[in-house]
């Protein structure tokens, strides 16, 4: 496979279609390896290639959940972490150190880049003046950093705590979900191994067919089982509740900042809702006018 063909297909095909094709090419390689082993030994056992197939088949379904798991990092980047909140002296000392280092570096750079006595260009002069101007407004951020929990708007704190709580439940449900899928896959492989003992497969095509049948049988039952339905429901609820609470938390931060130039999704939604309601009213009025016009016309013709 040349890389130019792969890139062309990535551009051309629907993204799901491309991904499933690529995963299935790998699955085919794993299946061939397993088949070669079976042909050579006349026996089939749990080979590491089965793990590879599982990864290739289910990455597609697990990835969306794993993307959400990164939310935790997003939250941490917004909220100062405990260590920073309580390690004030270390932070202060480190800040002093960084400031001296930056000043030292700036001076060194200046010494090497141009003679000290040479006149500055207007652009450099302006940038220096601008920096000096901004320095006048600099304040220490340490206190605000430590006070952060007190600064949160009223409802934001509830959304933040709920967001953490749903996230924890979501991660737990996701781990159980992955385990359930994995166990089902393992059961299917066990069935395949049993089949390999008697009556065997005969050909690679027959082996592939048996593998698919074993998987289909197990997954058909799993996906309709009460255990799966309950777990999937919990996974979905905690996932979407987490997303909602995180969004509302971020929205409240923005909405409570009088200098924020951004409208939030909830505010825009409200506008969309009103526009659609007005559109319905306009169309209702148009219909009534049309009916009245017809009525007037028919009355006129009666006269």
């Amino acid at each position, binding site marked *: 496979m040349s890389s130019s063909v792969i890139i062309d297909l990535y551009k051309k095909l629907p993204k799901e279609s491309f991904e499933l094709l690529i995963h*299935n090419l790998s699955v085919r390689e794993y299946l061939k390896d397993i088949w070669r082993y079976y042909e050579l030994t006349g026996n089939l056992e749990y080979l590491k290639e089965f793990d590879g197939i599982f990864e290739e088949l289910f990455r597609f379904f697990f990835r969306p959940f794993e993307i959400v798991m990164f939310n935790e990092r997003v939250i941490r980047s917004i909220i100062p972490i405990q260590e920073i909140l309580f390690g004030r002296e270390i932070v202060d000392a480190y800040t002093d150190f960084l400031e001296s280092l930056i000043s030292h570096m700036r001076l060194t750079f200046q010494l090497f880049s141009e003679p000290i006595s040479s006149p500055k260009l207007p652009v450099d002069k302006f940038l220096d003046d601008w920096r000096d101007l901004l320095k006048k407004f600099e304040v220490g951020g340490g206190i605000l950093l430590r006070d952060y929990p007190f600064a949160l708007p009223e409802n934001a704190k509830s959304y933040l705590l709920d967001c953490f709580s749903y996230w924890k439940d979501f991660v737990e449900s996701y781990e159980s979900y992955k385990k359930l899928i994995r166990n089902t896959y393992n059961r299917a492989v066990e069935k395949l191994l049993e089949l390999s003992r008697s009556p065997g497969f005969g050909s690679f095509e027959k082996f592939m067919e048996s593998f698919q049948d074993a998987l289909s049988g197990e997954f058909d039952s799993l996906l309709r089982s009460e255990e799966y339905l309950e777990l999937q429901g919990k996974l979905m609820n905690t996932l979407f509740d987490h997303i909602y609470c995180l969004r509302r938390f971020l929205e409240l931060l923005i909405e409570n900042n009088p200098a924020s130039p951004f409208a939030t999704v909830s505010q825009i939604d409200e506008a969309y809702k009103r526009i659609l309601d007005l559109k319905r009213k306009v169309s209702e009025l148009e219909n009534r006018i049309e009916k009245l016009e017809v009525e007037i016309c028919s009355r006129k013709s009666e006269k």
Partner: protein
Amino acid sequence: MLEKIREVNVKPWTCDFEVVHEDWLFKLLHFKGERKHRIPLLFVYAFINRPYILDLHEDVSVVRKLIKEGVDVWMVDWGYPKRADRFLKIEDYIDYIDFCVELIRKECKVESLTIHGYCLGSTLATIYAALHPEKVKNLVIQTPPLNFDTENALALWAKHIDPQRITRAVGNVSGEMLNIAFLLIDPIRLVLGKYQGLIDNLEDPRFLKEFYSMDFWIFDSPAVAGNVFEEYIDRWYHKNEIMNGKYTVGGKVVDLNRITMPVLALYAEKDHITPPSAVLPFFEKIPSKDKKAMSVDKGHIGLTVSKSSHAKLWNEAIKWIVERSD
């Protein structure tokens, strides 16, 4: 090995049409062709996926077949809902069907027309027919979900989710989310079997064209507007309101006893999305005296695009429509 896929050229739609009306998101299409029968036909497609499955390629185009028989074909295109459409209601979809019907009645100078619903479009078409039976000459329902109290995986999943919690978080339900859900319903056949079959046929240009015509369509998934998703899951799947006679549109009850016009039901025996049990109880319940059910031993999409369906079922179905179009 994959070079031949690069050469595949997939273009949706094979028949010419004109967009006769646009209402922000929704469109009314009119196909070009010679009108030999008085009664026009309006396709009401689902609000999931795109309507060109009915005109996917020349060999399996239902639209082309109808035009060839002289039927005047119109179609509603529900478009790609955006965040701005989050608060659309199913009622808005029904209103737009009525707008289209009125426009076609005036344009074609007829009292009523044939309404042909596909999948969830059948649900909309049936609701419309029950509310305005005088404007519906014939009702055709293709793979229709009408009885939502079924035991297939999709129905069981729908009964176990809380749509409000999803929509309050994400607004609309995106096409990507729907794609993953539809694949996960039958992962081994749709993710493994189907693509292993593709790998076995990478050198066959005809296979590749048909495969990718389908795959482009399958993954061309519009989002479902948030409110519509809530109604769809809650009122149809959770409460089965249409079958129970409790579904209302703009305060009017959707009474299935008003489905007295000729009805043709097309369903697939191996349909894992709308199994036969999603239509047969409805079919038995409606009072229409001229009703017929036809089935094929295929799946949800196979009914529309398989060559065997076109060789048999579609010829009979179109004959049924044509016989009632004058």
